[in-house]
């Protein structure tokens, strides 16, 4: 997992970037696994947040690597969108809870086939 980009300034050792990316990938995978395995809607949503943040982490790391602010800009927007999604998720979860008195995702599988 090395970046073969020669000629670019290297204020951060490639190995360090690699570490960040590894963490970010781990976050992504954890989020993914959590989303697949957990049944609670709120936890599932948190898992997607985790994945968003994985992307954010990667962006920041890359931004640092490339020595520009684009990565950080991206992160700000990611956070914004994540917040918007969180708001929506909360509304939706409440709506669903009102109907079935449960947060279990398995309650909702009438539509299939």
């Amino acid at each position, binding site marked *: 997992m090395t*970046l*073969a*980009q020669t000629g*670019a300034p290297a204020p951060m050792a490639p190995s360090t970037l690699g570490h960040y*990316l590894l963490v*970010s990938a781990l976050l*992504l995978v954890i*989020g*993914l696994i959590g*989303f697949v395995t957990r049944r609670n*809607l709120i936890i*599932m*949503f948190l898992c*997607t947040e985790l*994945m*968003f943040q*994985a*992307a*954010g982490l*990667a*962006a920041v*790391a*890359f*931004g640092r*690597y*490339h020595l*520009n602010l*684009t*990565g950080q*800009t*991206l992160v700000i*927007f*990611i956070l914004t*969108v994540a917040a*918007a*999604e969180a708001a*929506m*998720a909360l509304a*939706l979860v409440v*709506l*669903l809870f009102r*109907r079935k008195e449960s947060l279990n*995702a398995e309650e*909702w*599988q*009438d*539509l*299939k*086939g």
Partner: protein
Amino acid sequence: MTERLAFLYPEIVLFVATCVVMVLGLSRSLRARKSSAVVAGVSVLLAGFLAVVSTPRGSGDAACPLSGFVYSHALTPAMGQVLLPELAPYAKAVIALVGALLLLPMAGTVDRTDEARIAAGKAGFDPLRSNRAEFYAFYLFSLTGLMLCASADNLIWLFLALELTSLPTYIMVAISTSRNRSREAGVKYFFLGALGAAVFLYGFALVYGGTGTTNLNAIAHSISTGGLNTITLLGVVVSLLGLCFKIAAAPMHFYTPDVYEGAAPQVSGFLAFVPKTAGFIAILLLCAAVGWGYSHADSGVGSLLHAVSAEPLVQGTGRRLPYLLWLMIWVVAALTMTIGNVLAVLQRSVKRMLAYSSIAHSGYMLVGVLAGPGDSASTSGVSAVLFYLLAYGVMNAGTFAVLAALERGTDSEGQPVEVETLDDLRGLCASHPLLGWTMVVCSLSLLGLPPLLGFFGKLPLFTSGIAAGQITLVVVLGLNSAIAAFYYLRLAFTPLLESRDESEAPPALAPFRSRMAGAVIAAVGVLVLSAIGGWAMGHAFDAATVKGAGAIAPRGH
């Protein structure tokens, strides 16, 4: 800056209209409330008009000569995104037209029982209970996002535009009916959508990491000069897979049938067009950034085995996407159309069937993505995709509008009951000739039966696929069209040929004339475009001009 702003006049109009609608929808005056839909429609059409009229066209060859690609941040804002420089006017016009068409059946989607009670004098207007303002606002937001996609020149912009397109639709699905099924559809759509968004976002981050920029023009420049490095490639792959969610392509297609079935038909129709269009525009932009200039042999799926170690990842003189991307999209396209079609064959529920068919159509369009740009409408896959989006939008709007225009009485809670299965459509041509024939025309067109619009949509996919050497995939496409005939024939001929049992009352018309108008306009549109679609296709081809790394030089003879 004002130059730059000219790109956004349509979006600005839509945004303003959104604000107005949000206010109007909360008015105590019924007329004012009702006018919110009108305002939405007018604004969408106005936005489309502005897109055609006011979008700057200065980004021609002079400003951006083919030879020396020197992108600077100072230059690009004035030019908009230069990968598909002519895309925005066409795409926005299509979005506006189809969007307006999709608005017609949306009348009465929300607040129907409340409004009825208010009209009957049983209750007063309660802004807190009303959803109308939000619903139309969401509709406009979503279209705003979609239009923004078309002018995106930056991954961040693209990301935001995609999210702006999608987020409102989650809510629209959930509130489209008051039944649990809509809630279920909403939750599935939202959670899986978030998952998909996370995936392509991660991909975007990787692309940024690989190229050091999020500006698409610069990315293209970086790739064309520095080659496609592993991180970028991985980023593009992950982004594309994430975007597969938007276009409902395998392996991200699972949500589609459930969501389409759970939502009200008019909203399903909206879903079948809006996120799909956003997804395809994003995919085209990403692919244009990577470029179609690579070369490798086409040996179908079999070449998977010869794993191309010697594959050049630098732009060559070829006409293909990089092998890995090519392979991935090939597999995704073949899988998508096949899965969509074979599952659609099994369905009795019309909406579910159309949902699966929507998956299949994405598969067809991916063939155009693979084929890439060309020097005529018949060889350009990009143009084929852009035209197909228009064609699909119109015919699809027709089928869903027919479903929206019909209902089978009301249930115990006073909610209208939708037409569900094919059986409900029996004898429709006899009981409601206009709707019945709309269904016939639109389904046959979706089937791709010549000489209807769907055929002329599919034909450039065919020709461009073959011109790009994707013969195997084109044959897969052809065979899938045949599978699709199984269910489209049923959909077309159940209204026409089968007769309804005497005992059973035919479905009633929904009390919103605009729904029926939407259906009929769509059918007429299908017929008109079948005749004069060549004109639209010409514009699609203009819009498909690919500049930069992805461009191909005109073939010299």
